[in-house]
């Protein structure tokens, strides 16, 4: 195996690699059993270490501050649902929002999350959305996220292959000169065991991984992925894969669209 790659395992563990090197290492990790074993061993060896921390009393009022900020986060990331109904009376507001979020607006929190998400963390940014996240906030939020949404470069609807009864859409969001791809899909067939849905972007018929996701009980799933470089991708596609590790598509293309 490539010794250079094996040598950076600790830096990968400590999230010290550039995006590019991290992805390279993750690819290496798929094939290098030595690194897989070492990483598993490392995770196990450090498992107890957090308990080396002496108990320290949190500052006064921390609980109240954190809980209210966290709950507010929920309101801040669902502004579009509110915006759509802003003009309407408050009594119809909740019901209206509920109906709409079931169909369209459930994706908005994910966009906001993708924009604030640290994509440099260990492991892929795997986002899981379930139907329950359409919680209705009591008041419209103070801060909409329009600035963030301005960065959307392209919005696509993927077409299902014949015999497939599913929907998916994709957004390309530019952020800090990098392109975030946000995919959301509905009505996908259930997964079994380690199966995952895999997003691919293609150029010259060469597929590149562009996000892995799983679906909830209702067949909904979503993922945000940071696209590398300035490649002019030609096609986007979704397949079902036996596990999260496929480097080339093994399953049939379920949904696709030219970019």
């Amino acid at each position, binding site marked *: 195996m490539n010794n250079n790659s094996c*040598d*950076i*395992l*600790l*830096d990968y563990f*400590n*999230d*010290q690699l550039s995006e590019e090197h991290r992805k390279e290492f993750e690819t290496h990790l798929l094939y290098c059993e030595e690194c897989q074993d*070492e990483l598993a*061993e*490392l*995770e196990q*060896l*450090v*498992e*107890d*270490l*957090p*308990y*080396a*921390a*002496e*108990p*320290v*009393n*949190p*500052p006064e009022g*921390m*609980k109240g*501050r*954190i*809980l209210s*900020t*966290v*709950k507010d*986060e*929920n309101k801040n*990331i669902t502004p579009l649902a509110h915006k759509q109904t802003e003009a309407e009376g408050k009594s119809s507001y909740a019901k209206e929002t509920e109906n709409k979020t079931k169909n369209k607006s459930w994706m908005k*929190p994910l966009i906001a*999350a993708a924009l604030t*998400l*640290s994509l*440099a*963390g*260990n492991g892929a*940014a*795997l*986002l*899981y*959305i*379930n139907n*329950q*996240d359409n*919680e209705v906030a009591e008041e419209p939020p103070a801060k909409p996220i329009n600035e963030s949404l301005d960065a959307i470069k392209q919005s696509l609807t993927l077409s299902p292959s014949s015999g497939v009864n599913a929907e998916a859409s994709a957004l390309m969001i530019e952020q800090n000169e990098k392109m975030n791809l946000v995919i959301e899909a509905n009505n996908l067939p259930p997964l079994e065991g380690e199966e995952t849905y895999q997003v691919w972007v293609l150029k010259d018929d060469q597929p590149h991984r562009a996000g892995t996701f799983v679906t909830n009980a209702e067949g909904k799933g979503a993922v945000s992925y940071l696209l590398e470089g300035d490649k002019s991708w030609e096609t986007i596609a979704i397949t079902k894969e036996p596990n999260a590790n496929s480097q080339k598509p093994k399953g049939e293309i379920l949904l696709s669209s030219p970019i």
Partner: protein
Amino acid sequence: MQLHDTELFKRIQTHDEEALELLYDRYEKLLFSFCYRMTNNSFLAEEIVQDVFTKLWTKQRNFDETKGKFSSWLLTVTRNAALDKLRKKSVKTYELDERDALHEDPSSVETQVEWKEENEQLQTAMKTLSEEQRGIIELFYFKGMSQTSIAETCGIPLGTVKGRVRLALKHLRTELSSIKERGMQHEQ
């Protein structure tokens, strides 16, 4: 207990505020203490704990029950959030400091039931390590430093860092296991 954690996590994913509070209460002190241990800064530690719960609430992190204990997963998420914060704030604590490595500040020692036993066992095990090994663990795990920085800080060849980290952690684990074993025999 573990079942409850997972259950609470699932409920938090559905924006159940009660579940959020329950899980928060359960882990507040451990997470805060761990973050404080990593940053030596209670303001940053609070921010990190907030980041962690925000990530749970906004579903930026997904827990896979088949991959182990919820508490271990949550602590990993917390450590990553802390490393992220340390990087962003460019907080650099590169001095290899014996007090830091052992963290024996008597004023902060309280008899907490939460993880008192684990903590004592770890401290005992840590003491069996050489000063260099404790330093390596400090820099690698609690400071999350790159191999290059560890090599520079400790004045050792880059190529030896990985081996030394592994050896130090293995030594610690072996000591910890034997301490736990002795503890269990003692109880019987």
